[in-house]
Every structure is written in structure tokens, then in C-alpha cells.
């Protein structure tokens, strides 16, 4: 598959995965809802196209796009979202913690800004083992107000670590606009630490890929961290609870204007129509299979609810005292 076709396929996969997931939320099959990534697909697709399988990413609460673009199996991913034993995390993580360590995916993360330091530490470990692996941390515009992330920029720059910070500026942190939350600029934060920073059109997968390639090459060559601000529009709700709650913070006009520039069309128009149609059909079949697999998969056994609490297999006492060892 050509590079252009590959980028489009990743975006299409994410788009259809998200659309079907939203349906499954409404149908009650995905409990707790999701943070849809629709509208931002070019960012995950572009950045991850610059990575190798052994590179590492950390993701966010809006993480499906990153996890899929980095190569997680969409079938097992959907099984995770539906809380099945066959899911990537055996149903222990769900939408906000989906991970696949075999693909360098250190997980979506429910805490805004938390992934940056984790990715940077992983990048440090990669350097120490003598590899040229890089780590990428995705986060939103809301995260640039988190102290720990700013501390992390300092560490990454100070120790010249191969980490790429990708800020997805979708204009909002839930309902809060960037204008309401960011003094100065987003790239200025990185520049203050001497981290090369660029702003790119996050609706254009090629533009994102080009910027990510530069950054990844710099990291692999020992040139230290980089920062990309990718601007995009979140087409759907902050979280699917909005579909019921109908919070008003964006005008209909704004949403319509935002949606009018669809990253799938921006990039899809670069492909032959039949290539695009072929990808669409292939993705459709895959997503159909994923939904069927997920809904057919067994639910995890409640007896194992706290399996994996400790890597060493330690078992604490249960909550009702029945299994306590010290009963005398």
C-alpha cells in the first residue's frame, strides 16, 4: 500500500471505529461512554506513520485513534471497549486505559497530561539500552496547563531525550476554550525549554507526517525532544454524555464550519477514487468483524475482578472477610 493510501486507511479505520463505537455506546454495549476522536484522525495517523513498531507512545482519555494508529488490533480493541475477556486489557481497562505493550502502546490515560513523563522515562530507558527507539506523548490543549507536563519538558530537554510531544489543539478542554486557558502560546511553552516546536495543520495527514518525520529523525539521531502543535476540530462531543446532556458551548455555525474541513476528505482527495473505495470496503468489513467478535466474546469472570492487581500475584484480603487468612 502506498504511503498515501496507508495514511487514509488508518484514518478511515479510526473514523469507522469511532462511529460504530458511538452506536455501541447508545445501544448500551459500551458502558461509561467514550471520548470520540472524530475530526482529529490525521494527527494520530500522521504521527504514527513516522514510527516503528518498537517505538513507544502514551495516549490520552481520547485515545482510540492513537492506539489504533500505532497498530493495536481493532478487533481486540473493540472487545476491550465492550468490557470483554478477549479485550486488549482483558476488560480491565476500557476506553480510557486501552494498551498494547507488544506494540509499544503504553496506554490511553484518564488523567490529563499524565502520559508525558511516562513517555519521557521510557525514552530514557530506550537510550540507556542503546537503541534508537523514540517515544511519543500525545496530549490535548488542556494538558499544557498541567504542571507535571511542564516539568517534563524541562527534563526531556535537559537530558536530550528522544521524545516527541504532540499537542492536539482542538480548541477546547471539555468546554473551556484555549483562549480561556492558555496565556502566551502553546508552542511557546516548548520553546521556553529550548525544544524545537512547530505548528501544523492537524487536518492534513501529510503535513503531520512531515513534521513528525523531522522530529523522529532528530530524536533518533540524539538531537533531543521535539514538539508539534497540531490544530484540528473535534467534530463530536467531548464525551458521549454530551449526546444526552446537550451542553451548549459551541454554536451550530461553529460546529458546521469545523466539520466542513474533514481530514478524511483532505487526504482522501489525494487518492484515486477506486483506491479510496477499496479501502473503505476493507475497513468496513474489518469493523463489522470487530463488532461481531466483541459482542460474541465472553464477559470476564467476576471471581477474577482483582486479577493482575499486583504483578507479583499478591492477593490482599477480600472486602467481606470471608477469605481472610487470619480467621481464628
Amino acid at each position, binding site marked *: 500500500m502506498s504511503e498515501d493510501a496507508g495514511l487514509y486507511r488508518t484514518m478511515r479505520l479510526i473514523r469507522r471505529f469511532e462511529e460504530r463505537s458511538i452506536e455501541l455506546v447508545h445501544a448500551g454495549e459500551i458502558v461509561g461512554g467514550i471520548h470520540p476522536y472524530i475530526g482529529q484522525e490525521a494527527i494520530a495517523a500522521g504521527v504514527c506513520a513516522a514510527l516503528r513498531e518498537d517505538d*513507544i507512545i*502514551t495516549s490520552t482519555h481520547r485515545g482510540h485513534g492513537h492506539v489504533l494508529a500505532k497498530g493495536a488490533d481493532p478487533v481486540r480493541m473493540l472487545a476491550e471497549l465492550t468490557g470483554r475477556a478477549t*479485550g*486488549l*486489557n*482483558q*476488560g*480491565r*481497562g476500557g476506553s480510557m*486505559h486501552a*494498551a*498494547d*505493550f*507488544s506494540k509499544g502502546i*503504553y*496506554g490511553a*490515560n484518564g*488523567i490529563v497530561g*499524565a502520559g*508525558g*513523563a*511516562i*513517555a*519521557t*522515562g*521510557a*525514552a*530514557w*530507558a*530506550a537510550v*540507556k*539500552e542503546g537503541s534508537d527507539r523514540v*517515544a511519543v506523548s500525545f496530549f490535548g490543549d488542556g494538558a499544557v496547563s498541567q*504542571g*507535571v507536563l511542564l*516539568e*517534563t519538558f*524541562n*527534563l526531556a530537554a*535537559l537530558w536530550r531525550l528522544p521524545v516527541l510531544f504532540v499537542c492536539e489543539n482542538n480548541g477546547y478542554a471539555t468546554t473551556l476554550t484555549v483562549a480561556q486557558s492558555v496565556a502566551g502560546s502553546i508552542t511557546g511553552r516548548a520553546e521556553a525549554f529550548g525544544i524545537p516546536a512547530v505548528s501544523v495543520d492537524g487536518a492534513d495527514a501529510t503535513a503531520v507526517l512531515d513534521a513528525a518525520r523531522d522530529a523522529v529523525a532528530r530524536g533518533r539521531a540524539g538531537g533531543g525532544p521535539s514538539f508539534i502543535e497540531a490544530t484540528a476540530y473535534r467534530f463530536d462531543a467531548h464525551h458521549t454524555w454530551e449526546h444526552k446532556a446537550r451542553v451548549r458551548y459551541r454554536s451550530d455555525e461553529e460546529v458546521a464550519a469545523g466539520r466542513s474541513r474533514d481530514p478524511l476528505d483532505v487526504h482522501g482527495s489525494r487518492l484515486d477514487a477506486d483506491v479510496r473505495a477499496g479501502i473503505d470496503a476493507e475497513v468496513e468489513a474489518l469493523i463489522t468483524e470487530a463488532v461481531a467478535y466483541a459482542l460474541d466474546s465472553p464477559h470476564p469472570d467476576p471471581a477474577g475482578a*482483582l*486479577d*493482575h*492487581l*499486583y*504483578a*507479583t500475584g*499478591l492477593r*490482599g*484480603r477480600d472486602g467481606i*472477610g470471608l477469605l*481472610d*487468612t*487470619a*480467621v*481464628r
Partner: protein
Amino acid sequence: MARLSYLKALQRALSDEMGRDEAVCVLGEDIGVGVNNVTTGLLAKYGAQRVVDTPLSEQAFTSFATGAALAGLRPVIEFQIPSLLFLVFEQIANQAHKFSLMTGGQARVPVTYFVPGSGSRSGWAGQHSDHPYGLFAHVGVKTVVPATPEDAYGLFLTAIRDDDPVVLFAPAGALGVRADVDMDALGPVPLGVGRVHREGTDVTVVAVGHLVQAALAVAEQLADQISVEVFDPRTLHPFDWDGLAASVAKTGRLVVIDDSNRMCGIAGEILATAAEQMRLTVPPKRVTRPDGAVLPFARDLDLAVQPQQDQLLTAVQEVYKSSR
């Protein structure tokens, strides 16, 4: 036999583990110079790649260690002040601790966090004198509070080798403890196994950390009237409930001394478990800091808030008397 101090034991454990396992590295503030006397000499021995002086960015370097651990390293972090653990509670309790379960067992986070000098260090006042081990036990992070040099060595070793996050509190009140030990016999001490420092048949005293010394002193003082068994849990989570039950089965009487706040503290958990599951002949007692205590500066005020040896003595006598 050689004389080993608690601090030296910690230093030796860390150095031995770094020598044994290349993946072990240590991060923290002023550790190159070794201002807390635990990391002394490690920089020269193992180099700046493994002994990393960090900027004052506790939240970042704590999760940085998580990332490094996820990628295969075995980091150890020194915190200069116990209350810095409040600052990184998110990074330990909500990130490092949760990875294993949330990923369905894909990930492990072998990081050791240690505080050389927890609790009161006379004169350091409100923000430097906390003993937040109960918080970590509560959220399920493995929590270790060694009382003696040989346990400091053995538990530090085990903590570093453990595949889960472990917090080790080295109480300021224990740092000066010295013991005659057989250096060749030093080795790992398992988590979740308590230690009876002195056998007795009348009252079980559970003492946490440096208060083991106070408990031993009380046992000696009362020796001709009351036979006191001194039980040191050594690790608060996992806790050696079987060991405690065996002791209480003998004595039927229980007093806990714990240098942390009373409300929701570890002493309360020990009493509750004993009341639920062990055969107590009289109501148990605990000697703790007061509810929600903030350690005041002036020496007499500081001491007024910490559990004292004479209070323990009184509690033991009362528990003993109330059964006759």
C-alpha cells in the same frame, strides 16, 4: 559480627543491588553528593547514567521512573521529605500502582520510593514531619517500614527486586539505630512477614518503625510484672495477619503504637482486624498521634503530639489490668 547502622544498611542494600542488577538506577535530589547519606559513593561507583540528580520536579521524575520501569528498568527514587509523597500521590497511587491491573497484566512497574527520615526530625515542624505510610497501605501500594539495620537492608533489597511499586519509609527515629550483625547473613527479607522482637505471654504490642525500640524498652521496664510480646509487622501492606493472630492467640491482649494520625490510621486497621477475627480477652488500645495532627515546631509541642514510650507503658498496664 560487625556494627551496622540503619543508614549504612540502606546504603549498602542500594549499592549491592546496583552492583547485582544493571537495571537498577537511582533518581532524586542531591543524591550525587548524597546529602541524606544513603546514596553516598554511588555516583563515583556507578556513574551519572545510573545515579541521576534530578531537578526539583517530583511529579515529573516520579512518572518518569514509571515510564522507565515500563520499558524495563528498575528505578529507585529518593525523596528528601515525607510530605513530598503527597505531591506525587497521583503519580504513585493513580499511575504506577494501577498499571498492572488496568492493562490486564501486560505491564509491571518495579519502582521503589524511599524516604530516609520520615516522621518527626525534631525541629522541622509542620511540613517535614509527616508519616503517611497509612495512605499508601490504604490505596494498596506495598508499604514497608523497617525498624532495624538488618531489616532496613533486607527489606530495601526486597523492595527493589519486587515487580510492583513499593514505598519504603525509613523513620527519622530509626536512622541512628545500630546493631551487631553478621554481614554475611544479611539478605532479602520477604514482604508480609512480621518479626517478633521479644516473646511474651500477657500483652502483644504491635510497634511500627522506630517505635519498636520504644516497645522493647517498655517490655524491659515491665518485665517483672507483665510479659510483653513485641511484634514488628515490618511491612504494612501486605501485613502479616497470620503472625499477629499467632501472637494474639497467646496473649489475648493487644496494644498498637503507631506514629501516625489516629483517624483512618494503620493502628485502627490493626485493631479492627483483631476485633473481627482474633480472640481478644479485653478491648485493645492504640497509642497514636491525635486526629489530623500537624506537628508543631516547639520541641515540647512536637513531643506532645507524637506517641511516647510512657503512654505505651500506661496503655499496656491498663490493658493488662482490665482483664483481672
